[in-house]
């Protein structure tokens, strides 16, 4: 009865909260990301040609038939650029999720180990030190070394980029854990007999992941840049994979002689996508509290009334 009563009381308020949902702000924040993901998902529908097949004469200038011209093998540059978004998004999402998840776990472990003793402390200290060293190595050099050791494949590329980008979530999470670990509720949980592992997963991680989660779009953007950089210097994907960096690199020689379309279009797409992702990564944290507030209002009220 009480619940029914509460619902009846809250329904108009919830409706009011949803009315105040910041649609404009949310759309503006997410739009660039959504567009990039849409282009990637709908690539087979958008691209008029197979991106890995010779479809016409080589190096045709942009025209009504081939909007972005053709490349040195006669492949349609527009189709390749569109499919290039698919590769960038595939890597971007995978790397962002993996790097953030690993970063949160490792950062939490390091943070909690700093007040421990014994093996956990030593291991945490060692991980922190290794992370410091890796941070000191330029991203692209580290990625080249990893791909050089493992050989060119999607997996090695993924590991290389995750390794270069996981350091930020590790550091961000560690900082949060150092703050959270002094909270009274954690002490209470320990006094209540909760194991350290359970306390870490139930209390520490949920309260420490904020900065790392907000960092995810940045990882996405950095991944696109590193992927393109590796492709540009010929490390990573194999020909004729439509990867933007590789496309820029393979058309560079022609650029010098005025055949600009092979290089400029993928370069513009790298630029726009990184710009869009960077915009989203800055806009989302600003909009997020309002979105969260809009969605959380009913439950908070419910809790308060209960």
């Amino acid at each position, binding site marked *: 009865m009480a619940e029914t009563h509460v619902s009846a009381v809250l329904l108009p308020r919830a409706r009011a909260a949803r009315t105040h949902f910041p649609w404009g702000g949310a759309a503006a924040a997410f739009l660039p990301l959504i567009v990039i993901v849409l282009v990637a998902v709908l690539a087979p529908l958008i691209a008029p040609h197979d991106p890995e097949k*010779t479809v016409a004469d080589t190096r045709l200038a942009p025209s009504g038939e081939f909007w972005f011209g053709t490349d*040195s093998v006669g492949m349609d540059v527009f189709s390749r650029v569109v499919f290039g978004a698919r590769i960038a998004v595939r890597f971007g999402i995978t790397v962002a999720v993996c790097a953030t998840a690993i970063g949160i776990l490792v950062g939490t472990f390091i943070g909690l180990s700093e007040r421990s003793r014994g093996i956990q402390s030593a291991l945490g200290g060692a991980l922190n030190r290794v992370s410091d060293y890796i941070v000191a190595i330029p991203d692209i050099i580290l990625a080249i070394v990893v791909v050089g050791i493992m050989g060119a494949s999607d997996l090695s590329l993924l590991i290389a980029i995750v390794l270069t980008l996981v350091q930020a979530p590790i550091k961000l999470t560690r900082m949060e854990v150092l703050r959270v670990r002094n909270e009274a509720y954690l002490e209470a949980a320990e006094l209540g007999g909760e194991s350290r592992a359970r306390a870490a997963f139930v209390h520490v991680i949920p309260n420490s992941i904020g900065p790392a989660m907000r960092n995810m779009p940045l990882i996405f953007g950095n991944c696109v840049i590193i992927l393109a950089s590796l492709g540009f210097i010929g490390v990573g994907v194999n020909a004729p994979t439509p990867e933007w960096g590789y496309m820029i690199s393979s058309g560079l020689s022609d650029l*010098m002689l005025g055949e600009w379309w092979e290089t400029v279009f993928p370069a513009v797409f790298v630029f726009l996508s990184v710009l869009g992702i960077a915009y989203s990564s800055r806009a989302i944290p600003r909009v997020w509290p309002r979105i969260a507030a809009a969605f959380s209002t009913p439950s908070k009220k419910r809790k308060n009334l209960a």
Partner: protein
Amino acid sequence: MRNRRAPRLLTAAAAAAALVLAATGCTDRAADSSSSASAKSSITVAIAAMPTSYDLEGNWAASNENYTMWSQTMVGLLRYKYVEKNGVLVQDFNQYQGVLADYDKPFTKTKTADGLDYTFHLRKGVVSQAGNPFTAKDVYYSFQRKLSVDGGRLPQIKAYFNSIDQVQIVDDHTVTFHLHGVGNDDIFPQMLTGQMGRIWDSTEMKKHATDTDQWSEEWAATHDGAGFGPYEVASKTADQQVVLKANPHYPLGEPKINKITMQVVADSGTRAQMLSSGDVQVAEALAPSDQEAISKKSGVQIPTVEHPIEFVDLALVQNKAPFDDKLVRQAFMYSVPYSQLIKQVYRGLAITSPGWLTPSMGVPGTSTKPAYTYNIGKAKHLLEEAGKPSVDVTLTVSNAIPDIVDSAVMIKSYAAKAGFNVTVKQLNAADFATGRANATFQSLLAANRSQTQTPSYINNFFMPNDPSNNGAFVPTAEWKKLNADAIAAGPMTSKEAAPYWEKVNAFVIDDASQLPILYRQPNQAYSTSLQGMSYRYDNTVDYSVLTPAGK
């Protein structure tokens, strides 16, 4: 407030794109380079990389720049005779001119009971780059060194000698080589014209010998000055340039171009653009598309020859599946878009391949009919016959050569229609060389050339008695018999031997393991302010025959 940044950033993006477009537009100018380089006796050349070795005998490293440096600083007893065709000095691979030997009659050949004697008449009054007089002792020293150090193609010269005693100094200016057991397939003079036939100044070389380095390999790797070539190194700037100056003592006369600044410009398109705008007078190692792009510009000339010898080599390794089946190999050969490669990737700067036997080898009546043509119907039929309607193939290439990568990508695209699912695997040059040496590839595409243009030399590409070779073709008893019959039929350029060599060529074509799929034109471009474009066995520019236009 902050949302106002987005339009600003987009404006900046558009401006950046416009700048790039404007910059590329600027490159489209066809500068008249003739004024900048006219009647010059010093030129600037754009090369792709710095040379890494000045001694290709003791310190072998295959690269266009090493070949170039080796050819400018060192010479041998002989060179192939130059013949001018369509404004290009091409070499007749069956006629010789003396360089350190007498120009018109460099050697005499005498049959002996067990072989041949070659007697060379050396030039008198020749001095080395170091100023030491040239004598028969230099020839003796050079051959002793060739038999003692390892590198490059020395094994092919070593095969002629059991000991240095076969080299006899008759007098200061006469040397005789006593060769045993040689037949119609003798290519000793060709060997002496080539990269492994260079003669050292023994006096200078001995100065740099040490107890642990009897043949001065360490010194020679990084220095010149102990040879008789048309040029010597005046200065080097690491990773940037090497400057050559003409050797006034060069036996064939001091070169007309007395100073060459070889400037490293890594990108082919930039090298081409620099030639087009008159910043350099020769651009080496150009991609065909770059050559084509500047070919119509004023002040630019591109050498083309009737019978190029540089080829794109397709190897389908017959001891690795799926190419252990001859029908699959033949099907793949029918799936290669030969005409499209020549037209699209090589921009017309290549010709079809008749196989290994080419007209430049001098065998009478050599066919120029393409060994294979693109025929998807035939390819499908062969795959069906082999019981493999769909075949996965990994085609490995070096990413150092863009036209080879493009060729592989185009083959992938076209071969799919026959049922070949080709994966193009790109490796850096070092990994590619290692994989090739270790015979790990299933198939590969590479740039190659036969520096000795004789039919019997083809055998060297197949590394006999090595069934794991990555040269793809494992010589069989039938192949060996065909070769033996051809050699026994008469001199290689005789009418009697010609049909036998055609059979040898037909056998390798039918085997479909390793074939030149096209022969590409020289990869240089010159300013019209120069004349004397050349094409020789190693595809290096002969700067000693280059002259300012009109002189």
